[in-house]
């Protein structure tokens, strides 16, 4: 079934949630969230559907970034209240190469998240990484309680991976979180982080090399 065609819009350029402006010419693919966004614009109470769809993704991103359950809840609340207030200023942005699963609302929401979380990180003097370790460890223990040995191995591997992630430079860490936790495409991550797709690919490639080294698997020379 052919996809609707709309006037081309520019990529996000500023940090302001509603700061993007359309430019004429070209075509774009449909934002998969368009019906929900339009419904929420007509009736703000319908924002709940968007909230339900993305609250876990936003919360998970915040938790990995802040490594603190309470801080993650706090920023998640701020992100969604800000998004609700700014929704009338949201402009749909998409490129055909983003694919049928692309959601520019999700990119827009995560750009808000990136800014709110960055402010929170700046405001925090310390980063209690153990909170995230404990949270993940507890969950894995419960999930695999029938096999203590296997659970211990999984928990140890997960803890090492999280520690390695937390030690990465900010941009590499965020790129991996968005790729693996929120399962974003490279183009979506590029839009969230204000980078080119090529830059994001290299960022992730290098971050995986860092993770491999941190896990005791030095990269082979190819």
């Amino acid at each position, binding site marked *: 079934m052919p996809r609707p065609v709309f006037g081309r819009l520019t990529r996000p350029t500023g940090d302001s949630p509603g700061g993007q402006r359309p430019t004429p010419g070209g075509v774009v693919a449909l934002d998969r969230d368009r019906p929900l966004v339009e419904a929420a614009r007509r009736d703000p109470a319908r924002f709940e559907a968007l909230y339900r769809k993305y609250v876990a993704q936003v919360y998970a991103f915040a938790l990995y970034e802040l490594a603190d359950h309470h801080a993650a809840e706090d920023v998640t609340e701020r992100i969604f209240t800000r998004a609700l207030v700014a929704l009338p200023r949201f402009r749909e942005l998409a490129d055909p190469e983003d694919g049928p699963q692309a959601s520019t609302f999700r990119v827009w929401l995560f750009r808000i998240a990136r800014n709110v979380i960055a402010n929170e990180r700046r405001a925090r003097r310390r980063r209690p990484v153990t909170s995230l370790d404990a949270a993940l460890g507890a969950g894995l223990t419960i*999930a695999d309680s029938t096999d203590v040995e296997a659970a211990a191995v999984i928990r140890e591997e997960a803890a090492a991976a999280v520690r390695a992630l937390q030690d990465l430079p900010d941009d590499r860490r965020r790129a991996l979180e968005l790729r693996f936790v929120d399962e974003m495409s490279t183009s979506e991550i590029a839009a969230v982080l204000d980078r080119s797709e090529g830059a994001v690919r290299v960022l992730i490639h290098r971050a995986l090399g860092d993770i491999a080294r941190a896990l005791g698997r030095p990269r082979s020379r190819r």
Partner: protein
Amino acid sequence: MPAIPHDSRVDVEALIVDRYLDALLAGAGEPGAASRDHNNTVDPIIREAADVLRRSLVRVHPSFHFEERLAARLSAMASGHADASRPGAVVPFHPLRRGSLDDGNPGASPIADALAAAPREMTGARRSPAVRPLLIGGAITSAALSLAGVAWVARRAVRPTLAELEGML
């Protein structure tokens, strides 16, 4: 044959890894399918690191208590209760009932017990690539088994909708 510039080689490697991650995270096919398809193209060390991250970086879900509280606050904001957007403002939301998922009492909720006793195939090494672990309130479940969906339906069955909550305001 002229040597490939370093920057170009890095770009090509990064592109190949990107394709591998697409296959890995899409979870198409049986376990290890992504690895087999990219066996000769992706650095095995990078592949292993990606596999570890895929297993380890679970998506952590907020507690139902928090999710409902924030939903109520957003609903109040959307309904024109401007004060609800003020930091620290108190907005009405339906109190938790006994047996809800996140009141922390073992045995209080059969669903919570089921989540806590989630079978090992949900998170174990034999997990299908299509099944991503999901941590909810301290217990891991998976999208494939949709326990979270079951929990949500059960929860909504005993709790008022947002529209009903608005009617109470």
